[in-house]
């Protein structure tokens, strides 16, 4: 009897686990708009070496393909659940036969195979799910669209958009230990690098870097009880750096007075931290304490850097 109860209990747990797995597959989680908490985005890396419209079309096409895969999967989300219930139905036939005094496991065996098939299908459907695209994806599209007419004819944008994640182990720039021997990791994520030769002969380089700080998890011994406690990792903050470098075409421009733009000046969410105009090159560095900066702010910094240029008389 104990063996029967144990076996029945384990079987019931397995059936419940399968049921909730398939239920979660059927009911796709859609985060509410404006939901609180950190959101995960699709880990995406794009190398840029093309004309602006080609890049924009490619980006639109990529998003559409991801959505098409997801939509195709969404259509069949309830099928694994239905197959699960079909399996239950088969097992119930065996139950009915047993109630009638006959012993049979044939239908249950069929039901079990159906459940395995349902799990395989649910896994495949889940694999077709994708995370939302980061707002930076759309932001880059806006930046490229804005600068499209300023590009020298026939030339391309160069660079990358790295949305694989700002705090990956491969993005630890350095680590430091405090007096309590706790490790803090400093992350450097250059999520946007862009270079373009402009119509007026200038060359512009934009580099957006997200810097983050996170204390690694550690084990601490309580002074009172003597027990060891595991402290989880702790996010300590993040900031955005933006560097704009313009190599000026001396035949077209001269660099004007920097009195209109100086360190400490706010441009949107950014604050200018350094400005140099030496050697015919404008180097502007700005930083923002915000985790997310919109494309308007980046374009604003570029515009401010460009405002230092004065067109030479013809």
């Amino acid at each position, binding site marked *: 009897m104990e063996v029967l109860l144990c076996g029945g209990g384990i079987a019931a747990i397995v059936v419940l686990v399968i049921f909730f797995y398939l239920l979660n597959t059927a009911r796709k989680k859609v985060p509410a708009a404006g939901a609180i908490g950190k959101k995960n985005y699709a880990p995406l890396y794009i190398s840029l*070496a093309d004309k602006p419209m080609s*890049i924009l079309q490619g980006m639109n096409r990529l998003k559409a393909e991801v959505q098409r*895969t997801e939509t195709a*999967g969404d259509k069949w989300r309830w099928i694994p659940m239905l197959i699960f219930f079909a399996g239950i139905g088969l097992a119930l036939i065996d139950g009915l036969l047993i109630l009638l005094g006959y012993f049979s496991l044939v239908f249950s065996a069929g039901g079990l195979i159906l459940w395995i098939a349902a799990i395989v299908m649910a896994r495949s459907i889940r694999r077709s799910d994708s995370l939302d695209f980061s707002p930076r994806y759309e932001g880059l599209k806006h930046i490229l669209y804005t600068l499209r007419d300023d590009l020298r004819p026939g030339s391309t944008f160069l660079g990358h958009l790295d949305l694989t994640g700002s705090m990956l182990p491969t993005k630890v720039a*350095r680590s430091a230990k405090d007096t309590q021997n706790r490790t803090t990791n400093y992350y450097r994520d250059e999520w946007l690098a862009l270079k373009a*030769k402009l119509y007026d002969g200038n060359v512009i380089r934009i580099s957006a870097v997200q810097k983050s700080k996170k204390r690694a998890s550690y084990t601490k011994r309580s002074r009172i009880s003597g027990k060891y406690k595991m402290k989880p990792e702790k996010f300590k903050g993040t900031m955005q750096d933006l560097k704009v470098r313009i190599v000026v075409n001396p035949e077209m421009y001269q660099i004007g007075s920097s009195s209109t733009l100086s360190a400490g000046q706010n441009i949107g969410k950014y604050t200018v931290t350094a400005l140099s105009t030496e050697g015919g090159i404008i180097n502007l560095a700005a930083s923002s304490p915000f985790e997310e900066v919109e494309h308007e702010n980046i374009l604003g910094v570029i515009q401010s850097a460009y405002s230092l240029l004065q067109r030479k008389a013809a």
Partner: protein
Amino acid sequence: MSKKIIPFVVAIIMSCLVMAVAAVFAFGGLVAAEKFGSSSAWSQPYNTAESMKVIDLTGDGQDELFIQNTSNVSVFDGAGNILWNFDYSTPKTTLGDVNNDGVEDIIVYHSGAGSAVDVISKGQAQTIAKSLSIGTPARNAVIRFPSGPQIVLGDSSGALLSVGTNGQTTWQNVFSSEEIRGMDDALVGGQMHVAVASHDGTVAVIDEQGNVIWQIRQEQLRRMRAFDLNGDGNSEVITGGEYGAFFIYSAVDGSVLFNQSLGQAVSEVRTVELNGDPSSREIVVGGKEGGVWAFSFDGVTAHQLWTGSLSDKVTEISGLDINEDGKEEAVLGDDLGKVAIFTEDGTRNNLPSHSSGITRIDIGKLGGERYVVIADYNQVEVTKVNFSSIPGFKFVPLLVGLIVSAVMLVIAAILASIPPKPELKVSFQDKSRESLEAERRMLKESIADVERLRKSGEMTGESYLARLKRLRADLAENETAFKTAGFQIRVETFKCPNCGGTLELGMDKCEYCGQVTLS
């Protein structure tokens, strides 16, 4: 192979496997929906039956139910009414026609006024011998020796005594010092003998003069029975030991034909025609711990057919062809009151349990109907056992296999209709020479930037290497794009043979994995 085809290929392979397994089950006769049921015809209180038999004791052509316990001998008619009953002190009974009237008589060996033998014929009891020099009754049997029937008595001290049908003692034998545990008629060369066994493990075959033909000694005994298993005119003597020894001896000379250790005391041994093949007899053995074994004897030796189990000590075994397929099913009872039917392949089917342990089971016709008579510690119950099955159920695996295969093919079709998820590492690249050269310059600038960051301490360790690896990989892709477009390019990168990371030409050690390289 196209990604759309793969789900179909997998589904078809799986479907074939499922259908093959289903076919094995369907055509191998491994699946059947069969059940045995029972309904009670009548029951009468009767405690602790020691002996029971459905047999015609009145000569009317209709069987009656004979039953005996430690103090009484009774006979019921087919409807459950008592025809006659007699009280005795410690009776042991056997059946046989000793007065040659063509009707079986009940021979009672009891210890009322000294040891005595009564013959009950058609309800009339007659003492044929008394004050016999033998002790407390243990076993008795009517043996039809060539010279005529004798009633052989065995007591609890191992003594044997034979009396003729007139009550005269014919021979006496002090066989052993312990209780006689088994007594059965045994054929030797077509001549009837008596096989006897005592608790101390002595087994012997004795002729009509009381001479021991052969005698052997084995481990302590619980059961002994003799059958001519292969109908060759020589019986086989089957014994079950106190410690699990199961032996089949030849009744001719006591040679061992088969033996096996069963791991628990043997509590009952019976023959049952399980496979319906008359050229062999099957032996069903019950153990003290509930073990059940079936053996088949082919005339030379035996082999095990299957094993099963009951919940407690197997107290009785009987054979009945319930489903009328020409093969007997073994009906077993245990000391907890459970009754089960074991089929030819050892499948167990439970019948309703009794409230106390089963003591005897017999099968026979009562009032024209075939019944299973089950006696427990409190009562004797006559039950009708029936069999039913769902016709065509053996093909159900094929049906289930078809359903499962159809579902798998539908799943394959659905999965094939879902387009593959696009790669999330993409490159938008203009293939013009100017663009490729610009990209190359940009990548070199970026590599220089990373080097500068490392020198300034802003970037160290893994992050530096990861970024460098990615930029160099992009540089390698750029070189490939150059070559694909047919432009001349001076190759500056190569792949590490160990980790596959892209390195600058000329490096003699991989920065990512430490592999020494020659480039």
